[in-house]
């Protein structure tokens, strides 16, 4: 700092030390940032190094081979994950978006504070707990693990995520839109759906995609709901395979060939999730609202 206090200026030595200390700490903080970023690069590096060589035609078209045989693929797990996500979206999207509409368009200030608080707390519920709860509600009564149970578990986890992002984007829509529409005598529900939600559509879709990417990698809630399956699922009332489940099962197995496939599956899952995140970023880059 040039020219600080005039009469009370500390000695040159002390000044120099203070400046050095400041520089040293700046360096340390820069280093921390580098350390924080390192794991992402390490994980990506190993995923590509270990996984890329196993990504062949078979991986995307074959079922897993029985223990001891090499080869096979994760076709059923990939389709299973997509099926589960579709079911999750059917539950999570309407409830989440409508909840967001309530918060932004209808709710009172105090009530909203409570609801936001509840949504944030719900968001912090460990994913394994969701698995247990859905097990009790949807697996025990029907006496079978099922794709439905897995889909519901993921769907419920999406609700608070989508609700909060939807609310945020709806609040960005100028109040004058609503007032202009009201002045034309349009019903409130039409204003919300046709004008407000439509104007905020891009942001809402972004929030939905982020929520989907987040639950796509969830394993814990599927352990005792979807369970996993080594074959094709032909009936949603039966267990279904999912990429994260398959990665977990293969990773803790003792076979090298399964480890290889676990890396390949992890690479696919990571590409799916990072791909979605990057798309969302490109989508929202030139976002006006």
């Amino acid at each position: 700092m040039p020219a600080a206090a005039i009469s009370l200026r500390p000695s040159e030595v002390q000044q120099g030390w203070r400046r050095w200390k400041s520089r040293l700490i700046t360096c340390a903080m820069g280093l921390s940032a580098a350390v924080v970023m390192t794991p992402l690069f390490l994980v990506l590096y190993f995923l590509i190094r270990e996984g890329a060589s196993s990504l062949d035609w078979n991986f995307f078209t074959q079922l897993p081979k029985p223990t001891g045989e090499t080869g096979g693929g994760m076709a059923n797990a990939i389709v299973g994950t997509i099926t589960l996500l579709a079911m999750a979206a059917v539950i999570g999207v309407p409830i989440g978006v409508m909840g967001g509409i309530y918060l932004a368009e209808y709710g009172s200030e105090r009530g909203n504070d409570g609801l936001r608080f509840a949504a944030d707390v719900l968001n912090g519920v460990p994913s394994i707990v969701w698995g247990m709860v859905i097990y009790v509600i949807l697996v025990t009564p029907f006496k079978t693990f099922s794709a439905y149970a897995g889909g519901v578990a993921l769907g419920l986890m999406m609700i608070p995520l989508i609700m909060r992002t939807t609310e945020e984007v709806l609040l960005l829509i100028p109040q004058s839109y609503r007032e202009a529409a009201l002045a034309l005598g349009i019903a409130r529900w039409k204003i919300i759906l046709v004008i407000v939600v439509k104007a905020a559509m891009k942001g809402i879709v972004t929030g939905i995609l982020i929520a989907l990417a987040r639950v796509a990698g969830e394993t814990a809630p599927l352990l005792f709901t979807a369970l996993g399956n080594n074959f094709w699922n032909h009936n949603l009332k039966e267990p279904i395979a999912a990429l994260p489940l398959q990665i977990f099962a293969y990773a803790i197995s003792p076979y090298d060939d399964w480890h290889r496939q676990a890396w390949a599956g992890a690479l696919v899952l990571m590409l799916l999730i990072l791909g979605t995140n990057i798309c969302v970023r490109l989508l929202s880059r030139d976002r006006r609202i």
Partner: protein
Amino acid sequence: MASLVESVPASALRSPGRRWPDGSFRLLAILAAATILALIVLVGWVLYIGSGDSIHKFGWRFLVSSQWDPVTEIYGALPFIYGTLLSSVIALVIAVPLGVATALFLTEMAPQWMRQPVVTVIEMLAAVPSVIFGLWGIFVMIPWLRDHLFQWLKSTLGWLPLFSGPVYGVSMLAGGIIVAIMILPIITSVSREILRSVPNLQREAAYALGATHWEVIRIAVLGYARRGIFGAAILGLGRALGETMAVTMVIGNRPEISRSLFAPGYTLASVVANEFTEASSPMYLSSLMEIGLVLLGLTILVNVLAQIMLRTLTGSGTRKVA
């Protein structure tokens, strides 16, 4: 919201003929929002009912006994509670200083062009699924820890009970490290938001007194943001407690309480993940439910605390979902 909208009498806006769609749409929205509350009640209720047998049979002893024996049907959760708390504390000890330093770097020091890329990388780190961290942990991190870091810790700090005993690789410390990696993004991003809310006046005043860059941060910025950063750390703790897959894959899954961080441990979430589908008797299942209930109670407590700290600070609830 909707100040003008509300001040217009509702009857003036709607012709009687289309009153019902408006009402039912509103009702749907209310129901959707109420789902949130219903879900919280549902989760707690299901676990509470499910753990009834165990609560009735073991009472408070469940929380302080360290016997976990499916054969004799005696269950105590202490090793799991210990493992969950210890691995989370290790994670916080590593992640809080690193995360806060990174947040400070991003808000106070980094050149403008560098900020967005770093933030993006950290957001991507947050998107990596737990199971992939676990996979990487098993095959990359554990061997490295076992052959390098743990050996070094043992030779330099081996006289401490914390770093004594045989080194297997899978361990409480490995679990703590992997959780640290996973909670770094949330601690960094929430701290960053808090730091950005520190008024510039605060910094300018310190500069005017002749403070160096670090002194400005220490006196003006950190002093102002202390409470919020504490909130960020608590939020990270909430995530750490419930972390399941990655921890299960690297912590060793042995229900023992050991003084050494090199010894394998077990957490509440891990024991549920490993044993829930194998629970053969009603009492076994009920005990696992109670484990889930304990975990839920811990995380809700911690999350409520964090939200309260962060909310009173920013004064509004519109903080982004972390």
